[in-house]
């Protein structure tokens, strides 16, 4: 399967290892991966701030790149894959709305075409077979990022992928579906509330899986959105209680070799 990777600006600049892991896992799942030229950002920061014109200007650039990849006469990609629930949501749900709003009906039409063929990474991987996956025994808590959960309704797929990894002990976590407090610019507009929300989430992490008997508390926090993990990790670091985090792609990529995702390759 030919897939076009939209790597996202956040992964590109702050978490390139997530991009590398994504490519590795996709290849292991039998995908032929391209990373179309011309992509920049999905425009979400500006869209969420109400700056629709700025959002459209940036989103149109990425739309052009992804549309071209899907319609390359020589070697068209079948799907666009995004290693971030939030950016996948921007493309599938908000792009058509954004372009209609700024009066660019042509872009809106193309956005609908691209959106219909855009998959968040765990959605795509859940439908593919992967080589055997294993990791050293680790208690893992999965954080459902809000856009992935409530806009794209992706709930079971990331958990099912983790459950395919031998050694991954997924723990029950009462706060798994609660917002981490990142919210893009929210984290900067209301920093005190944002960190209070992170603290709530981090505090409950220590109790995750408590009902299951011995060995309560998660050793690794996993999500399909790097931005949530960045927020939670940097908050914990600031408080001097570092928490191990890994993007789902990083867990799966490490598990291809039986490695511990908490240790950099």
């Amino acid at each position, binding site marked *: 399967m030919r897939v076009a990777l939209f790597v996202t600006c956040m992964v590109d600049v702050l978490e390139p290892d997530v991009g590398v892991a994504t490519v590795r896992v996709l290849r292991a799942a039998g995908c032929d991966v391209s990373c179309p030229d011309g992509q920049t950002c999905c425009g979400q920061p500006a869209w969420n*701030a109400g700056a629709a014109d700025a959002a459209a200007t940036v989103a149109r650039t990425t739309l052009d790149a992804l549309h071209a990849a899907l319609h390359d006469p020589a070697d068209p990609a079948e799907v666009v894959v995004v290693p971030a629930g939030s950016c996948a949501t921007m493309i599938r749900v908000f792009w058509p709305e954004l372009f209609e709003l700024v009066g660019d009906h042509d872009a809106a039409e193309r956005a609908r075409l691209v959106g219909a063929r855009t998959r968040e990474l765990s959605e795509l991987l859940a439908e593919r077979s992967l080589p055997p996956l294993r990791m050293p025994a680790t208690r893992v808590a999965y954080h459902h990022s809000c856009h992935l959960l409530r806009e794209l309704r992706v709930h079971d797929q990331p958990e099912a992928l983790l459950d395919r990894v031998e050694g991954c002990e997924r723990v029950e976590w009462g706060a798994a579906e609660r917002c981490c407090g990142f919210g893009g610019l929210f984290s900067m507009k209301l920093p005190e509330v944002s960190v209070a929300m992170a603290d709530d989430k981090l505090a409950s992490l220590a109790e995750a899986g408590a009902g299951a008997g011995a060995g309560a508390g998660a050793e690794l926090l996993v999500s399909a959105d790097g931005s949530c993990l960045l927020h939670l990790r940097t908050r914990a670091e600031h408080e001097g209680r570092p928490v191990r985090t890994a993007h789902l792609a990083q867990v799966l990529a490490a598990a291809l070799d039986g490695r511990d995702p908490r240790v950099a390759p």
Partner: protein
Amino acid sequence: MSGEHLLPGTTLRDRTAAATGDVRLRGSLARALRHFGHGRERALADLDDPDGLRHAARAVRADILADLPAILERLADRFEANGGQVFWAADAAEANGHIAGIARRIGARRVVKSKSMASEETGLNEALARAGCSVVETDLGEWIIQLAHETPSHIIAPAVHRDRYQAAEALQTAAGDRTLDPDPAKLAAFARETLRAEYLRADLGVSGVNLGVAETGSLVLVTNEGNASLTMGVPRVHVAVMGMERVTATWEQCELLLSLLARSATGQQLSAYTDIVSGPRRAGEADGPDEVHLVILDNGRSDVLASELHEILACIRCGACLNVCPVYRQVGGHAYGWVYSGPVGAVLTPLLASEHPEAAELANASTLCGACMDACPVGIPLQDLLLSLRRRRAERAGSAERAAWRAWAEAWGRPAGYRTSTRALARGRAAARWAHLLPGLSRWTEGRAAPVPARRTFRERWDAGEV
């Protein structure tokens, strides 16, 4: 709006920052909201098809709003035919003036009230006090905050921010020499005993309206304490204050909404008391008021109805969006600065209190996590409405913010500009400039470690054939 007690020149950030520092407040909120949340989930799970009901409720509310003027006219006509009197109030001042006029005409000195958010919105208690009346709130939570000189911090649980010791402290001011035990049952018994005397002495009863039913010209009030029954039933004259959107055309619609209201609010199948008043006491009836007045309050709602944000008027004030909102959970209702809090308040306040520039920033009081939309029993797209409000605000934003977004779009709207800036970030050269580009970025490090850009971007590694 009345503007008397709210949004007093503070910023949203000031208020929320103060609230997050209040450990006791956060403890009270977490306890109460966990309780409400579990109740709601259980109550909805009992239904055969909760989502089907919610879709039906959304459609019903949309139909009602589409035909609102006609439904309101019908309600008013029937209510008058039943012997009630109707007053259409364009704003808070008109509503308060009319009610104070009734109080003066009947020589009222003592007023009992059952909880009403619409009259909180108009600042009715202050207006009645100026007209020489003493007003006693009879909903226990509302009475507690009245005694503490506070405003409600939750749509259905006005004193949710106070623990039982703080509740006892407030009630102590009404207990005189008697020392109150902070046991909830004993506090409730004290309130019952004290308030009963107030009902008997009151000249005027004031209530809100949960739903007006046009079909029969009836007003429906739900409570769990029965205080609305006594407020309506005991004093000689009753005034009900209703936001103009709080109506249904038929009893069938009302029944559907009531079943979702109680389940969404407190996890009950139905509230403990559902009172219906269709007019004054008729000849031969044992109780009920001699006069019943309905005040239909516009106060900016007509403008909202005509705008792209009209769906917010579908709200039935169950409070479910507050209970699930992770922001509300941290800061409580007072941080929202006006009568309505939580996600619904973040939409309603900028609309109804639009003359206060501070109100517009409430649209930022959300991470857009969507939990409120999932919980709303009438399917209000709260997240979309918040985004609409943010766009309105951005259009009026100062030139610095607009210029920042233009500069960002100029850079990242071109692949070459994007590459230049991301490479510069990776080399650690652009941090200062970056902070300029995205407004408020410097606030990240208030409470969080600074993220460190990777030495080389993914795209550089990809282009070098290393991936």
